[in-house]
């Protein structure tokens, strides 16, 4: 072997080992088209991990955002809408554990915003247990749990801790080649959040809350994209099918969008986005969405019995 070939081989092996140990990912794309970002992968390759090249990333709004809206429109705390099974020991598969961690996480945020410290602490312990079962380092929880206990009367601090806990868990999972788990947690949280909106819309008959349901039309597209990205071997086919069925219903949500030039204020590091949008959700469509999301949620929280 020539010295130059040996050098390339050595560097390649070294790089592969380092990327592997660092949780890195091999490059899968060399797309250089700026106008349209690289196409999403079909899913994680067996050795894929946190680092993606030219891939699409999907954001789901935090369940806390909808919980804040529920509080804002005057909804009272309704413990009955939480997942009543706080034991969680029956969730034995990674898939059911991840989805239910998302459900409990949304329940935790809702309880926290209303200052229900007892259910909050119970839910936090459940989240810790499920997170640990999913391989999230206990160290992620330990420090924050201590800070949580010391700030039980300070809602703002607790909200920061919980959102930080979610971000650190997400970071940990992505660093450790568990993006599928991360996606399922987000899925569970999104389902629970939409469940809250649909149930409480019926109780409160509030336009903002009804609109929040309709606004999920496009978020649902991101949700589908995120799950499909992780559905390498068809293990998530059932979720994709349910989401596609939900998409069919959401096609009947009317929406409009009008572009308005934004206003940027450099001194404040801020841009005001003035574009206008609206959604129209008829009572019939709302009823269909409510029934479907109830089915989906039941399939998740009832998965301990299957």
């Amino acid at each position, binding site marked *: 072997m020539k010295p*130059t070939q040996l*050098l390339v081989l050595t560097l390649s092996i*070294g*790089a592969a080992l*380092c*990327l592997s140990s*660092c*949780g*890195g*990912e091999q*490059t899968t794309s*060399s*797309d250089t088209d*700026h106008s349209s*970002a*690289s196409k999403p992968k079909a899913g994680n390759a067996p050795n894929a991990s*946190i*680092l*993606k*090249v*030219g*891939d699409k*990333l*999907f*954001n*789901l*709004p*935090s369940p*806390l*955002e909808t919980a804040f*809206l529920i509080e*804002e429109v005057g909804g009272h705390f309704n413990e009955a809408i939480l997942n009543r099974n706080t034991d969680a020991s029956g969730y034995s598969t990674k898939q059911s554990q991840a989805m239910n961690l998302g459900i409990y*996480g949304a329940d935790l945020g809702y309880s926290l915003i209303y200052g229900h410290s007892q259910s909050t602490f119970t839910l936090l312990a459940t989240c810790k247990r499920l997170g640990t079962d999913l391989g999230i380092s206990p160290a992620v929880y330990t420090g924050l749990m201590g800070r949580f206990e010391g700030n039980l009367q300070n809602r703002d601090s607790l*909200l*920061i801790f919980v959102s*930080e806990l*979610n*971000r650190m868990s*997400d*970071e940990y999972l*992505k660093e450790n080649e568990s993006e599928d788990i991360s996606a399922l947690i*987000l899925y569970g*949280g999104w389902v629970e959040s939409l469940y809250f909106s649909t149930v409480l819309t019926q109780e409160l008959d509030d336009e903002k809350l009804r*609109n929040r349901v309709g*606004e999920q039309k*496009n*978020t649902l597209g*991101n949700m589908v*994209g995120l799950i499909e990205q992780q559905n390498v071997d068809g293990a998530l086919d059932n979720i994709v099918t349910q989401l596609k069925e939900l998409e069919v219903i959401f096609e009947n949500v009317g929406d409009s*969008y009008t*572009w308005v030039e934004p206003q*940027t204020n*450099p001194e404040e*590091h*801020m*841009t005001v*986005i*003035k574009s206008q*949008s*609206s959604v129209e959700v008829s009572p019939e469509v709302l009823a269909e969405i409510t029934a479907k999301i109830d089915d989906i949620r039941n399939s998740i929280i009832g998965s301990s019995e299957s």
Partner: protein
Amino acid sequence: MKQLLIITFALLSFVGASAQCDITADVCQSHITDDFLSDGQHYRALLLTDQVAEFNATLYGGSLYRLAACTGTQDGNLVFRVFDKERNLIFRNSEFKNAPYWDFMVKSTLDVIIEAELDPIAGASGCAVMLMGFKR
């Protein structure tokens, strides 16, 4: 020999970029100050020069969002642009010295596409980290 040097450089750049990811995440997190709540998600993309990471998000009306986007250990090396779903340009940080974070006050719920790429002066590859926070 030239090819060898390019391959070697690319490999070493990737190794370096991967190792930098954790540091970059810490740098980026410092921009999501305590008056913002994290959306609970963490986004990373390993980029080579000329590669673009695309990030799809929904921003709710009535909320203030902070987007932080970083690479390497110093601010100002990641270029990002925010478009609406019709590809109308909302913001680009290159007009503001590649500002590592920017706030967006949202009047009405909309879906946005965020594109991020390395500033060519930052090097041939890097770990791009994007974080989002919100407050009502």
